[in-house]
């Protein structure tokens, strides 16, 4: 079997036809992934025992004549900020190098209940902070398309694994574009669902009001299948939505004739680039499919980057306080006092980007600065949301680029955090508004670098978003 070419539908068919067992597939997938991993460093570690146990459960279901589950036997990867019981979860941080969680994230538990086989944990930026996967304590990830280039971040390992074929699909997390941007850099599909659609229980918190768990896959249908399984109310997450989960597969084959698609003009202003050309071509394709294309305006876009970096760093400074050396993290044993222990543990444990964000966040929440920064950023966030609501009164969906540029070279931007932050411009607005958005591959540059088309819809309109993405994907094929 060609593990790298499998899709979920294909696996379902093959298992039903007894072409191979789930255990045989898991064995082959693990072997392939372990052999290929040195090329990208996409996986931080594998969990063969857990994978084989899951595969055997699927085989037992099949042997009893039962349905193997919607993801029966499907080899998946899980970003290492998402907790897996008894399997190390490091958040790509020295601090959690040896941390083994005592419980599963809700999304992980739901994947396995649906029959998925988790092969291992994927690399990422430390605590999901970064746009290039270079902020991992365990080395950067290389883009499978071009090993000299970054895979994007922070879910770089998940995107690379799916692109490389070492996982059929993967879980990532998105706070400011961390699923969509690496998906676009690696040429796969990445979905950030509505905020609250997927439980955050067991997702290591970076910025709680912005954090999302979402799928990455090689096609729209597979990404929809994953979301179908992980979405839904979770009593363990107070911010998870009660709204029933619709059938995400039902509308995938429908046409999109007559839909009104908006192009936010602010997203196309500085886009006289290859990326701009590819996105423009994709818009033409949508037009060809019968969509009505309209320009819309999201005037507060220019404030999105500062707004985002105030809110996410504020929340991060609080969320990362627990990694203090007292309980489950590494601890500086040479400390003279409690304060000294905190300083040495955190000073040595956190990488530069985490420290930068903790300091920024601590600053913006400080007495005397709170109103000027945090409170103001929250107001801007409300305005950004209103912009989207106004746009969705005119159009059914928005399309935009994912990133201003394709995958860049390793080391190219790591010394310029501001430029790195600015590259999140097109993705952070969706997170700030809490609306569903996704990246679908829309071609390659002359250098062969993938570019993604971003599709955004209103809250809980994932079915419409998937329908547009699937129609585009068919037309572009």
């Amino acid at each position, binding site marked *: 079997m060609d593990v790298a070419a499998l899709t979920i539908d294909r696996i379902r068919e093959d298992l039903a036809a007894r072409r191979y067992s789930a255990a045989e597939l898991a064995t082959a997938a693990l072997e392939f992934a372990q052999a290929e991993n040195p090329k990208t460093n996409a996986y931080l570690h594998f969990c063969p025992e857990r994978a084989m146990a899951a595969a055997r459960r699927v085989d037992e279901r099949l042997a009893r004549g039962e349905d193997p589950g919607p993801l029966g036997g499907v080899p998946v990867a899980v970003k290492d900020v*998402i*907790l897996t019981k008894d399997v190390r*979860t490091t*958040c790509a941080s020295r601090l*959690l190098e040896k*941390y083994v*969680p*005592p*419980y599963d*994230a809700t999304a992980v538990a739901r994947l396995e209940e649906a029959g998925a086989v988790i092969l291992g944990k994927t690399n990422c930026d430390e605590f999901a902070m970064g746009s290039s996967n270079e902020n991992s304590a365990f080395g950067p990830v290389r883009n499978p398309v071009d090993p000299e280039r970054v895979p994007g971040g922070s879910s770089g390992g998940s995107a690379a694994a799916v692109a490389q074929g070492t996982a059929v699909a993967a879980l990532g997390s998105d706070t400011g574009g961390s699923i969509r941007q690496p998906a676009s850099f690696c040429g796969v599909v990445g979905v950030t669902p509505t905020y609250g659609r997927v439980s*955050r*229980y*067991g*997702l*290591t*918190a970076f*910025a*709680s*009001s912005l954090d999302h768990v979402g799928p990455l896959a090689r096609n729209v249908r597979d990404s929809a299948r994953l979301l179908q399984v992980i979405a839904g109310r979770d*009593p*363990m*997450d*107070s*911010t998870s939505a009660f709204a029933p989960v619709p059938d995400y597969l039902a509308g995938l084959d429908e046409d999109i004739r007559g839909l009104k698609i908006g192009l936010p003009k602010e997203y196309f202003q500085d886009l006289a680039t290859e990326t701009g050309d590819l996105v423009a071509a994709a818009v033409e394709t949508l037009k060809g499919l019968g969509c009505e294309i309209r320009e819309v305006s999201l005037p507060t876009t220019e404030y999105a980057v500062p707004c985002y970096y105030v809110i996410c760093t*504020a*929340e991060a*400074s*609080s969320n*990362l*306080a*627990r990694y*203090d050396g*007292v*309980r*489950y993290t590494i601890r500086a044993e040479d400390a003279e006092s*409690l304060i000294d222990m*905190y300083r040495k543990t955190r000073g040595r444990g956190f990488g530069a980007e985490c420290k930068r964000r903790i300091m920024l966040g*601590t600053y913006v*929440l*400080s*007495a005397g600065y*709170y109103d000027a920064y*945090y409170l103001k950023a929250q107001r801007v966030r409300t305005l950004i949301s209103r912009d989207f609501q106004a746009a969705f009164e005119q159009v059914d969906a928005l399309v935009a680029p994912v990133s201003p540029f394709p995958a860049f070279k390793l080391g190219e931007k790591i010394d310029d955090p501001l430029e790195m932050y600015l590259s999140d411009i097109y993705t952070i607005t969706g997170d700030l508004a809490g609306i569903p958005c996704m990246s679908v591959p829309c071609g390659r540059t002359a250098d062969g670098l993938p570019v993604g088309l971003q599709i955004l819809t209103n809250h809980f309109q994932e079915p419409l978003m998937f329908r547009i993405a699937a129609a585009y994907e068919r037309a572009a094929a």
Partner: protein
Amino acid sequence: MSSAADILASSELLAKYEPVIGLEVHVQLATRTKIFCACPTRFGDPPNTNVCPVCLGLPGALPVLNRRAVEMAVQAALALNCRINRVSRLARKNYFYPDLPKGYQISQYELPLAEHGHLEIEAGGAGRRIGITRVHIEDDAGKSVHEGFRDSDRYSYVDLNRCGTPLIEIVSEPDMRSSEEAYAYLTELKQTLQFVGVSTCDMEKGHLRCDANVSVRLKGAGEFGTKAEVKNLNSFRFLREALDYEIARQVAVLEGGGAVEQETRLYDPSTGQTAGMRTKEHAHDYRYFPEPDLLPLEISEKWLETIQASMPELPAAKRKRFIEEYGLRDYDARVLTATRPLAEYYEKAAAAAGNPVEAAKWVQGELLGRLNAEGKEITESPVPPEHIGELIRLIAEGQITGKLAKEIFPKMFATGEAPSKIVEREGLKVMGGGELEGIIDEVLEKNPTQVAQYKGGKKTVIGYFMGQVMRATKGQADPKQVNQLLRKKLG
């Protein structure tokens, strides 16, 4: 006044100043489970056994607000006459400490659960209304243990069993003007919360913790003085001692030409003094911000109505009713409403007796005296309220005398038996009919001189006959009946 305070300032000096006191009281809510997870709140279990990913602050864990904790907090706030904010917000209070595993406490800041309340107190014979600024909910931290381990010289240990226990913080206005008023306020607060059943308020177990903001100003001055926060007031006695000391200390500072520093001071019960904590090092910027893991807390009209309907009658209302409905004196009503179980006991006894005033006398005099002597609570009373009612009825029906009843009661207390049973077994019935008349006839026969005196107009001699008859009947006769019979027979 404590001796530590005496040394600092004379009563003449103190009389020049007026203390201004506000209290911040933390109360542990009596929920079965913690505020953000399902772990039990049980006290005294082995360290770190009542814990889970949420209260341990493990990565990825999220809080889910305990509905019962909110209800109890609302009950407490209603009992304190607060206005409930229909939408309030949980907020993070950030600071590092080993017994705070999340690195922040989940509390409330800008929008607390309830505001604008008050509590009526009585101190020095006068009634006062003390304002309550706010009531908010929060989670408790764990406990750091610095002693008792082999390596305690180098390490501290942490027990997180208490971590995540629901608390309410009740902040008063700076409305108290003496340590007596602060004492009365805390007493009334404790009684009220116990009445509502939201907390045991057991100070020894830390279920009620108190900090005070204290300042002094010259009498008649308009502005408040600089305040100090006094911590560690973990008993009623400590509260009064610490306040007296701190008031005297501030007066002494001002009289000495100095200025009171705004600082946090710790009360040391072994010396009776307060001492400043090194303020600079401990200056905290808690960096409060709304807790993004929890939605705003909304109390719907319907929910609030349900909670209101579940409120028990509060001590003040109960006192008023006891006075108006049962005809009790203010003092008696106060004693009998001291705790909810006592008030309930009394009302049952009063109903069984058909005479609330008599019931009050028996419960207060005979029962409480004996319970106190044995260090027992009303809930441990060997005498059920129905027995007190029965005893009062036996007297009213003339079956036993009041004197006899006083002899019967200790037996009821010792055995838990009903009074009618004791009367029957010991043959303690009131003597009447032929038997009593026979004894009276005998007494009259033996005392012809006195009979003659009576008939000659010296009516007071009847007292002599009464005594003779009562002695002859060994107190088993009803004096009223004896009196009537004597008058009849003497014509």
